[in-house]
């Protein structure tokens, strides 16, 4: 890929709303992405390979569990900083951001929120450095938007449980050391547990042939009579509330991440529109190009304001799941639209790996579906404003 000349748009001077520390966090991850991700990501995406060597750096820079307190090995940052880290990682690539999202919000968060003290001390510090990598098993082949219908189940055998079932579309699964798995007990109540690689009957086949998130490893989790020690179960959390609260944290991060992808597409399109000459002038001088660019920066600015406010609410523990759904849905759709428009501005060059556009666009096709589809989030907003559920 060409040199990473990214310059972040800040049309409404929103930097002034950030603390010096938040700006330093963002600039740090931006510098890390420029140094470590941009030079190699296109090649890995083309080859559909996860750049495993980045794990150590992601851990060192603090991208795993940014808001986990220091006593458990995290840096203990606030939610706006977490969002800014996700934004910068996804500016590099949604796949890299996905790896960090899963580790942070779907593995470290549930262990921190629902785990026993022993589980927290055993896993969190190693997850923060990347020494241990985790994945999250909720979605099943036949249960995506309706996780309550899951078939994975476990039976109580005294000092351990026996887990059976299969999970699908699991980011990080092919290389994860541990999996946070949600399954039903004998009464049909959803419980969470930590399954470790190496437990007999636990396998993680990789999903091949993706046209999206190609630089991220995706796979299945298969449990064939896996004996899981009882001490690996989360003690108290029961029902869908457990996994959904993890998704809330991840979706919040995605709403920031999508802005990163959108900013990268816009920045590239803006630069290209000033350099590309047709009919004797830069194409940025034509009204149809300006319409695209003006709409892009307008939508990015709105999304930036939405997430900033959401971050403040989240810092104050006041962000509702429905508010997070709105931001995830709006921002991912915004980013995907911008990626498509930016592709048009780049003309034929937009389909090549010389520019990040097509990679972002294809990545966002996953992002708009995972962690609650575009339509499901709409129905969450609909339910929230009417009080009437359209799901059942």
């Amino acid at each position: 890929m060409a040199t990473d000349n990214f310059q972040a748009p800040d049309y409404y001077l929103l930097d002034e709303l950030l603390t010096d520390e938040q700006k330093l966090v963002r600039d740090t991850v931006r510098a890390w992405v420029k140094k470590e991700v941009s030079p190699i990501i296109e090649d890995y995406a083309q080859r559909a390979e996860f750049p495993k060597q980045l794990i150590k750096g992601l851990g060192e820079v603090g991208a795993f569990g940014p808001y986990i307190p220091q006593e458990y090995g995290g840096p203990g940052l606030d939610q706006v900083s977490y969002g800014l880290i996700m934004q910068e990682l996804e500016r590099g690539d949604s796949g890299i951001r996905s790896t960090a999202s899963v580790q942070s919000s779907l593995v470290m968060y549930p262990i921190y929120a629902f785990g026993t003290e022993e589980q927290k001390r055993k896993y969190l510090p190693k997850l923060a450095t990347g020494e241990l990598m985790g994945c999250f098993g909720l979605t099943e082949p036949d249960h995506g938007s309706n996780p309550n219908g899951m078939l994975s189940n476990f039976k109580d055998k005294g000092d351990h449980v026996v887990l059976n079932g299969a999970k699908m579309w699991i980011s990080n699964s092919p290389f994860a050391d541990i999996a946070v798995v949600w399954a039903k007990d004998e009464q049909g109540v959803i419980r969470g547990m930590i399954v470790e690689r190496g437990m007999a009957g636990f396998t993680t086949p990789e999903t091949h042939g993706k046209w999206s998130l190609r630089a991220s490893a995706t796979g299945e989790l298969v449990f064939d009579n896996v004996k899981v020690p009882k001490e690996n179960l989360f003690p108290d959390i029961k029902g869908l509330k457990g996994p959904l609260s993890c998704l809330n944290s991840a979706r919040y991060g995605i709403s920031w991440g999508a802005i990163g992808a959108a900013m990268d597409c816009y920045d590239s399109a803006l630069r290209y529109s000033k350099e590309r000459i047709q009919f004797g002038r830069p194409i940025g001088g034509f009204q149809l190009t300006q319409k695209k660019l003006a709409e892009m920066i307008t939508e990015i600015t709105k999304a930036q304001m939405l997430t900033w406010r959401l971050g403040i609410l989240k810092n104050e523990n006041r962000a509702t799941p429905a508010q997070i759904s709105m931001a995830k849905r709006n921002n991912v759709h915004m980013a995907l639209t911008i990626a498509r428009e930016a592709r048009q501005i780049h003309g034929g060059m937009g389909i090549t790996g010389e520019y990040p556009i097509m990679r972002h666009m294809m990545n966002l096709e996953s992002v708009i579906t995972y962690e609650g589809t575009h339509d499901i989030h709409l129905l969450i907003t609909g339910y929230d404003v009417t009080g009437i559920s359209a799901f059942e």
Partner: protein
Amino acid sequence: MKILVCISNVPDTTTKIAFTSDNKEFNKQGVQFIINPYDEWYALVRALELREAQGGSVTVIHAGAADSEATIRKALAIGADDAVRIDAEPGDAYFVAEQVAAYAKDKAYDLVLVGKETISYNGSLVGGMLAEMLGWPFVSLATKLDVANNTATVEQDIDGGTQVVECPLPLVISAQKGMAEARIPNMRGIMAARTKPLAVVPVSNASKLTSAESYQPAEGRKACKMIDAANMQQLVELLHSEAKVI
């Protein structure tokens, strides 16, 4: 080893430089400031490497108003142990050197590192003046620095090559590319920087020797004029009458 690193605050390299309407001052409106790259990438990082290898402490010192503390915190996030801010707008190089000398003279530093120049005013003066005021040797434009047995071994650029210099501590060194590799801070460092000491010291007696009267931005690059390859006569005429190079 006790090391002092001087850091200054410069506009980000992507800043569009503008001056106030009377051209007397740089217009800071909306400008992002960063640590001068020569100070950060080379002087500070090499100081941290020496501390990591040999123990001791790294203090950063900066002359500037309170709004420069964000850059100082970044130096602490990268790994400096503590920081000092001299509470003053930096006047000229003499002013800054005198402030730093006044602070450093009785603190028993083994080494003072500065960047070879700031990327804003490109003065390259503070290091030399500071050494003189402290009565220490000064080695400029260093690309490599090792310290053993109370002696610094320094490689510096000279015209057409490099020179290796040995010098007993204490001394002042100005650092440039090659001395170290830039470090990206991390979240733990950023959090640790919150609680690291940042002392604010008042200005000691000092006066500026110079003052900037006005600024003129450099002329932008002019458009390229294409001459038909067959028309050599016109090219020669233009080189003579317009470009005035022949």
